[in-house]
C-alpha cells in the first residue's frame, strides 16, 4: 500500500503536479459529476490511496475516435493522468507490446486480477456469421468480450458503438453489430455514449468508479450526472425555441442572429449529453454554438434517425412514397369493394317486388 502511495505521489511529482493542482483536478471532477463539495477531498484521498486498478481496454469495431478523444490534449493534461491511477494492462493503441506478448499481457492481467479488473470496451461487436467480421489474434470480438467479461468487476462501454452499437449497427448493419449490453447481462455496465464522448465525461466516470464505485445510472446505463439532461434543456439557444424563432437555413438572418436550429435538424431536444454545459476542447465551444445542430450522436441509432438536416418532427423514411403506394392499393381494394357493393345493390334491385295496391288491401287496377 505505502509503496503504491509513494509511487503515485512520485508520479505526480514527476509530472510536476503539485498537491494543490491535484486537488483542483479532483474538485473539477467532483463538480462536473455534481457531487457534493466534500467529495472532492475524499476523491483526492481515495485516488492517492488506491491500489492501481487493473484495466483491460478492448477495442472492437471502432475508429479509435474515443481513444483520440480521451487522450486529446495539446499539452499533457490532467485528464490523461487518469491513466496514471490505473494499470492499463491492455490497449491496442497505447500499449507498447504487440502480437503474442500483448495477448499474454491481457491473459496475465485477467488471471492476476480475476474478479477485480475493470473492462473498458470501445467499438461494437459483430455477431453475424459467428462474429467473423472482426477478429483480434484470431479470436472473434464476441469470444474475446465473453472471455474477458467473465471475470471483470465492471464494464465501461465507451462511445456510442460499445454502448448502443453505433455506426457499425447503422442500417443495414452488415456485420450484425451489437452493443456490449446485448451480449453481457451479468455484469454491471456503464455506458458512456457519444461519438466520441466528451473527454472529461470519460475521465470523470473512471475517477468515480475508482473512488466511489459505479455512479448513479439511468435506464440506459448512462451516468445521470452527465446524461440526465438533454442538450436542448441546457442549450443557450433555448429561449429562441420557446419564442418560435428558428433559423431556416445555415446562412439566413436567423442563423446569423443565433436563433434555434430546430428546423435545420438539431436533435438537441432528444439527445442526452453534457455538450451544452461542459462543451469541448477545454470548454471552448460545442456544435450548436458553432452554428450547427446537434446530430444526436450519443443516442442509440442516431445514424438511422432520419436526415441530420431534417427536424425531429419529420418522419424517418419517405412518407410520401408510402402514401402513394397505399393510395394505389386503396384504389385497387376500393374497386373490388365497389364491385361488391354494386352487385349487392343490383341483386337487391333484381329481387325487388313491386309494391302494389293489393298489398294495401285494394284491388289491382
Amino acid at each position, binding site marked *: 500500500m505505502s509503496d503504491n502511495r509513494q509511487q503515485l505521489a512520485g508520479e505526480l511529482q514527476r509530472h510536476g503536479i503539485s498537491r494543490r493542482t491535484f486537488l483542483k483536478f479532483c474538485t473539477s471532477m467532483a463538480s462536473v459529476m455534481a457531487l457534493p463539495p466534500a467529495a472532492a477531498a475524499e476523491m483526492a484521498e481515495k485516488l492517492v490511496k488506491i491500489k492501481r486498478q487493473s484495466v483491460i481496454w478492448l477495442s472492437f469495431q471502432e475508429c479509435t475516435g474515443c481513444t483520440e478523444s480521451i487522450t486529446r490534449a495539446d499539452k499533457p493534461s490532467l485528464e490523461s493522468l487518469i491513466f496514471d491511477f490505473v494499470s492499463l494492462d491492455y490497449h491496442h493503441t497505447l500499449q507498447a507490446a504487440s502480437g503474442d506478448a500483448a495477448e499474454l499481457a491481457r491473459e496475465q492481467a485477467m488471471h492476476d486480477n480475476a474478479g477485480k479488473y475493470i473492462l473498458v470496451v470501445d467499438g461494437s461487436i459483430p455477431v453475424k456469421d459467428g462474429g467473423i467480421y472482426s477478429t483480434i489474434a484470431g479470436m472473434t470480438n464476441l469470444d474475446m468480450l465473453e472471455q474477458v467479461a467473465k471475470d471483470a468487476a465492471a464494464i465501461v462501454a465507451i462511445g456510442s458503438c460499445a454502448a448502443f452499437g453505433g455506426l457499425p449497427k447503422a442500417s443495414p448493419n452488415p456485420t450484425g453489430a451489437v452493443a456490449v449490453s446485448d451480449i453481457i447481462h451479468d455484469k454491471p455496465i456503464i455506458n458512456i455514449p457519444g461519438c466520441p464522448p466528451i473527454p472529461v465525461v470519460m475521465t470523470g466516470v473512471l475517477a468515480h468508479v475508482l473512488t466511489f464505485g459505479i455512479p448513479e445510472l439511468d435506464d440506459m446505463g448512462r451516468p445521470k450526472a452527465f446524461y440526465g439532461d438533454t442538450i436542448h434543456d441546457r442549450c443557450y439557444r433555448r429561449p429562441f425555441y420557446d419564442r418560435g424563432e428558428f433559423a431556416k437555413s445555415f446562412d439566413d438572418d436567423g442563423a446569423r442572429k443565433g436563433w434555434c436550429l430546430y428546423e435545420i435538424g438539431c436533435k438537441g431536444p432528444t439527445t442526452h449529453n453534457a455538450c451544452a454545459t461542459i462543451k469541448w476542447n477545454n470548454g471552448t465551444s460545442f456544435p450548436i454554438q458553432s452554428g450547427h445542430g446537434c446530430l444526436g450522436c450519443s443516442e442509440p441509432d442516431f445514424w438511422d434517425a432520419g436526415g441530420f438536416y431534417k427536424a425531429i418532427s419529420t418522419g424517418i423514411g419517405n412518407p410520401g412514397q408510402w402514401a402513394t403506394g397505399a393510395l394505389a392499393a386503396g384504389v385497387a381494394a376500393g374497386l373490388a369493394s365497389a364491385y361488391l*357493393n354494386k352487385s349487392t*345493390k343490383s*341483386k*337487391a334491385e333484381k329481387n*325487388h317486388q*313491386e*309494391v302494389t295496391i293489393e298489398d294495401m*288491401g*285494394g284491388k289491382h287496377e
Partner: protein
Amino acid sequence: MSTSFEQGINTLKEVIDAPIASYFSSCTNCGLCARACIFYTETENPKYTPIRRVEPMRRIWEQEFTLVGKAKKALGLSKEVTEQDLKDCVELAFESCTTCGRCSMVCPVGNDIIYMIRRMREGLTSAGLAPKSLQEAAVRTLEKGSVMGFPMKTLEAMVKAAEKETGIDINIDKPDVDYLLLLSSAEVMQFNEIIASLAQIFKEAGVSWTFSSIAHEAGNPGMHMGASDIEAQMINRIVQAAEELNIKNVISPECGHAYMAIRWEGPNVIGRPYPFKVYHIIEVLDQLREQGRLKTSGSELDRITFHDPCQAARRGGVNQPQRNLLNMVSSNFIEMKDSQACNWCCGGGGGMNTIEKAEPLMQKVFNRKRNQIEELDVTTVVTMCATCRNTLEEGIENNNMNVEVLGLTELVANHLLKEKK
C-alpha cells in the same frame, strides 16, 4: 303479397345510395338535428332525435356496404336488423315525423336527414309496415283518384256550382289549353271556394285551363308512405292526362307534399323527364303578377303573417313568390321568426295528420307554432298548403286563439280587380 320483412330489408339495400353512405359516414351523433325538430323541442324526448329514426338503415348500410361493417358483423359486434327493429322504427319514421326537413338545415356535416327518412319509409312500406291510414289513402287514390275518396262526380258538382257563382265556364278535359289544374282533397272537401277564386283570377288574366277527369287530384299518399311504385302510378295518371290533352304546364295545388311529389319526385319515380312543366299555383300567380296580368285592388291593413309549408318552401324551393303576392295585397305583412327555409313545421304534414295515434303528439307539438303566432300578435295566418291550413285551423281552435287562417290564393282572389266589361 309482395310485402314482407325480407322485402323490407331488400328495399333498404336498394335505396341506399352514395349520398346516404356519405351521410352515415359523416354523422358524429352530435344531436344538433334534435334541436331543429319540433317533436324533440316540444317534448324533449331524445328518442325523437331525427338521425335515430333511420338507425336500422344505418346498420344495413354498415353491414352491407362497408368493409368495416362486414368485419364487425362477422365478429358479432354489429347485430343484424330484425323484424322487431323495423316495427319499432314505424313510430319514429311515420308517427312522429312530418318529413319537414328542418333537421337537414342544421346538420353540421350537411346530412340531408329527410332524404334518408323518405327512404327508410320506403323500406318499412315494403316490409308491410306502412300505417294503415296511409295504405287506405293510397287505395282510395288509386281506385277513386282522390286521397279522401271523392270521385270525379263530386268535383263536377263543385265545378257546376262555381260556374253558377261566377258565371265563368270551367273546362274539364279540354285539350291544348295553357294549364292543367290539379287540386288537393282538402280543397275539394273544405276549401272548394278556391275553384271559383281561380276561375276568376284566370279569367281576368286571360289564362286558359282545364281540369282532367283522369287526374283531378295531385295528392300522393304513395310518397308519404315511401312506396315509389305506388307513387309512380299516381304520377303516371297525371302525366297521361297532360300528354293526352297536350298541355305544357301542370299546376300543383296549395298542397306541400303534392308539389314535392309532382314537381320533384315524379320524374324520378316514373323514370323519365316530363314533357311539361310543373308549377305551384302560387308560382303561377306570381308569374301572372309579374306579367301584369294579375291586378288587385285594396290592401289588407290587419297584421298578417305567412306560414311557409315545408315541402313547398324549404324542400321545394318556392320562397319568394308568396312574399311578392302578400306584399301586393297587404300593407302589414309580418315575417314569422325563422321563416322560409328554417320555418317551424305545423306538425301535421308527411301523412301525420292521417294517423289517429299521432293526434295527441300533433297537438302537443303545435305549441311551437302557437307561440310563434302569438308572438306576432296577428289577426291572420296565410299559408299555401291545405294540410298546413287544416293543422293550423285545428291548432288554433284547440288553443282558443283568435286568429284566422287563409289560403294565399283565396286572399289574392279577395282582392282581385275585376275589369268591367
